[in-house]
């Protein structure tokens, strides 16, 4: 229904620099396989957390929907993948497919709950949904193993070739590949007129509607896509660690991903990725120094960050100033 896409030549210079930074980011991510072979399990966690935060960025950074229950999709994806591996097939790619699908279905179904209401309503509704699912997983002991978690999951080698090794080589490469694919999709979405209308909704939903933006349909769509990404992230955790426990639904997981995204900055896709790197590395470093108190330092950093304002970790990655305008 939109007219043909238009070339935007004046943005080309800025886009070139952004592209170079993006390339640098992915080159570093790939180089890490060789430069840090002992930290691949940590890198895998970072990639999964990054994908999870990317999902939240679509919802929060682009559509302006606040969520404290994003773990609902992550958790459902993890259990879907785990159960499929346990009972149906050991093919890890089918498990990931099931994880993304289940996340997306849940996202679509619950999107109608977050359409209305204020930020506070949305925070509570999303939190409530994740609590419900967490408790359901706990109660359905026969299916989920309850508090013991899903034990005995085995994933066959990817494409029948790449075994999941203890060092996490396959795990990291798989997670990184999925993350890359999702970033490409998210990039495509956010640069399209669809993505632009999302930003109009974030700016002012009522006004957006009055100038012809189908607000409801857009929010349902983006929430579903984001939930699909989150489900995939959960699936990756299940496949690569071959274990799923109740903590995938944990409130702390929803809170952490929000923290990660705020750390890296919202609304430019790479915020969640950079935030995930910073968060996990900080966690790793600080918890080696003071195992019990690492959250203290994360808390301090968060407060400092919010008070100091917009100067984010990923400031260099942000949209460069546009031609002719002040930065």
């Amino acid at each position, binding site marked *: 229904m*939109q007219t043909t896409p238009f070339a935007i030549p004046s943005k080309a210079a800025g886009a070139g620099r952004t592209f170079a930074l993006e390339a640098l980011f992915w080159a570093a991510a790939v180089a890490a396989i060789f430069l840090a072979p002992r930290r691949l399990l940590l890198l895998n966690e970072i990639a999964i957390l990054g994908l999870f935060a990317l999902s939240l960025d679509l919802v929060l950074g682009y559509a302006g929907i606040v969520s404290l229950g994003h773990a609902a999709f992550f958790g459902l994806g993890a259990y879907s993948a785990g159960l499929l591996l346990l009972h149906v097939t050991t093919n890890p790619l089918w498990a990931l497919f099931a994880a993304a699908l289940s996340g997306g279905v849940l996202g679509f179904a619950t999107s109608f709950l977050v359409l209305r209401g204020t930020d506070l309503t949305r925070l509570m509704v999303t939190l409530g949904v994740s609590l419900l699912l967490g408790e359901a997983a706990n109660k359905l002991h026969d299916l989920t193993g309850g508090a013991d978690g899903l034990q005995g999951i085995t994933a066959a080698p990817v494409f029948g070739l790449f075994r999941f090794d203890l060092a996490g080589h396959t795990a990291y490469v798989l997670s990184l590949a999925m993350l890359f694919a999702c970033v490409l999709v998210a990039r495509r979405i956010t640069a399209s007129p669809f993505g632009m209308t999302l930003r109009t909704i974030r700016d002012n939903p009522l006004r957006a*509607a009055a100038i012809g933006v189908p607000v409801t349909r857009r929010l349902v769509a983006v929430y579903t896509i984001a939930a699909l990404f989150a489900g995939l992230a959960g699936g990756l955790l299940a496949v690569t660690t071959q274990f799923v426990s109740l903590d995938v639904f944990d409130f702390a997981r929803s809170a952490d991903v929000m923290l990660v995204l705020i750390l890296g900055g919202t609304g430019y896709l790479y915020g969640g990725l950079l935030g995930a790197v910073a968060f996990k590395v900080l966690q790793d470093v600080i918890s080696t120094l003071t195992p019990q108190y690492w959250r203290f330092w994360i808390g301090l950093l968060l407060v400092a960050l919010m008070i100091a304002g917009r100067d984010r970790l990923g400031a260099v990655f942000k949209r460069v100033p546009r031609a002719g*305008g002040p930065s």
Partner: protein
Amino acid sequence: MAEAGPLLAVDDLVSGYGEAVVVDGLSLALAPGQSMAVLGRNGVGKTTLLNSIIGVTRRMRGRIHLGGVDITALAPERRAHAGIGWVPQERNIFRSLTVEENLVAIARPGPWTLERAYTLFPRIRERRANLGGQLSGGEQQMLAIARALILNPSLMLLDEPTEGLAPIIVEELMATLARLVRDEGLSMLIVEQHAQRILGLTHHAIILERGRIVWRGASAALAADQATLDTHLGVTQRAP
């Protein structure tokens, strides 16, 4: 517009916000290709009338038809797609989008394309890569009008388009609006504080008081009727 009936028909509209009634039993009709000035002092319901047509107020009674279709129960975005282009008082440019993105995001197919919008407002073309928040008031107003046009509406609603703009910009804008009315045959409802500014370019005029129409007629007749202008709009409305 082939239909014989009016393009816009508002029948016995009562609307407002919450419990407050602002528009109180108002009826009007506008034929295709015609434009109407909506005049009145502050707080008489001019903006609320426009807001009721786009669908963001609380309606208590009455119906609104556009091109013979009852749009009373439609959501705002459905009304926009049905053919209502809105240029709000605060311009409402999306600040986090570039000028071009502001337009492309909501464009709908029709005679008005991005290219034609840029031709109409060359200043907007120059600023196409700037963020909405970086525009001057006049540029924002032009962008708001361009954005309404690119929806390819059958009816444009303009809410105080000249408010807060420098006189030279007002002149430029008025000339453009006059061209849209005269050459394009675009139907418009224009809310304005300064009657003399728009009586020259509109066919009809209505004056509101306390949510009702207290005068209606041809714009040319009102422009010549200083007594009516004085009575309902006050002495500030004298021709310069």
